[in-house]
């Protein structure tokens, strides 16, 4: 069957009754935030991807590009956010080319919400979608079931409460670009320290009206692994050799074959 395939559903439900449950999908746990400032919008995300209780990726990228000036932070199932974002990015580009206009954030949002609604929340993609377009700067969010929100500051993911606490305390209408970046980075850090599903580093993306978008990958790295106290390399000769035996598996025979004269068929 074309498109997303449901053929294995019955087999999987049967297997789970026999004790072979489906493996836990890699989730992004996550803290993602977005914040508007006069003249633009900033989004930020942490970089930890979890698979149950295990960290699957210590430095994953949660900021996806929908268009050169429209970026999207994704929480939820990692594969779903990645694939849905790429699909909608392709659709957005085709749409912008056929309309001969710069893509708009509300277009991306509408495509995302209609797609996610069609799949009734089974595509676990919770996205904060932000960008600049000919109508200005926008900050919007989509939930997996297809509902959307508009706001001046947003947070999503398991660390959203920690991040929202920081945003609610420090958000002002008249932030400068640097203050907005600092606010978002602080909010993500609150998620990194206080939420188990978020961790590692902070990625930031700034989209300003009239300028190119700037992505700061690993803008903050508060979780660098410290240097080990000792060197654990073993000096050569640490392990004593008790016995050595060499066994020839093949008999190697070398002969020299000369190719002085090539036999060429010279008949016409």
């Amino acid at each position, binding site marked *: *069957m*074309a*498109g*997303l*395939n*449901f053929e294995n*559903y*019955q087999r999987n*439900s049967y297997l789970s009754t026999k004790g072979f449950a489906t493996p836990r999908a890699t989730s992004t746990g996550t803290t993602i935030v977005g914040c508007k400032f006069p003249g633009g919008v900033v989004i930020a995300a942490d970089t930890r991807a979890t698979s149950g209780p295990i960290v699957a990726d210590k430095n994953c990228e949660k900021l996806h590009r929908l268009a050169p000036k429209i970026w999207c932070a994704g929480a939820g199932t990692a594969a779903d956010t990645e694939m849905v974002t790429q*699909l909608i990015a*392709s*659709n957005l580009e*085709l*749409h912008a*080319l*056929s309309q001969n206009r710069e893509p708009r954030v509300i277009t991306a949002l509408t495509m995302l919400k209609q797609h996610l609604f*069609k*799949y*009734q929340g*089974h595509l676990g993609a919770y996205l904060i979608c932000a960008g600049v377009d000919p109508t200005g700067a926008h900050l919007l969010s989509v939930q997996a079931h297809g509902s959307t929100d508009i706001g001046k500051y947003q947070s999503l993911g398991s660390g959203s409460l920690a991040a929202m606490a920081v945003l609610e305390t420090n958000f002002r209408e008249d932030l400068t670009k640097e203050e907005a970046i600092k606010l978002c980075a602080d909010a993500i850090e609150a998620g990194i320290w206080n939420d188990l599903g978020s961790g590692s580093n902070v990625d930031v993306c700034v989209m300003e009206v009239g300028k190119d978008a700037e992505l700061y990958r690993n803008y903050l790295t508060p979780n660098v692994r410290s240097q080990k106290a000792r060197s654990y390399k073993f000096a050569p000769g640490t392990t004593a050799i008790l016995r050595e035996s060499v066994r020839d598996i093949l008999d190697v025979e070398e002969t020299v074959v000369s190719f002085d004269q090539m036999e060429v068929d010279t008949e016409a």
Partner: protein
Amino acid sequence: MSLRIIPNNQQESSVTTTKFGEAAEHAPGLQDILRTQEGPLNISSKLNNRHPLESRITTWEKTQEETKLEMYRRVFGAGEPIKRTMELNIVEATDFKPSVLGGSDSMHKDILLGKDTSVDWEDVYPGGFESGNNVKDFHTEMEKKMGI
């Protein structure tokens, strides 16, 4: 006629033995299990315990199209949906390329349906011969098309 956004959640109340496959010429009451290479058909597995999304997704596009045509009928008159459906049927009747060679090109259909500037999962996972699925061989397709 209704204007639906979401497909009707229909569970069939009755099915025939040939609903889930082509009838075999040698046994017209059953599907052709030799051609499909999937073995004897378990009709209850085709009806029960299916993923809740499956019927929604398979009938989604058709429902959207029907709603669109119904809206055109109400706004522009009965001629609009009839003309559009006729154009689609003409394309379907005249386009032919064997499934083993990839199936017919969807360009004309895409333009008529307004999908020429969008991609969906059907384009990412085409599910035809290249994906390793068992498609009808050329002879069967031609026989069906010619009505032999």
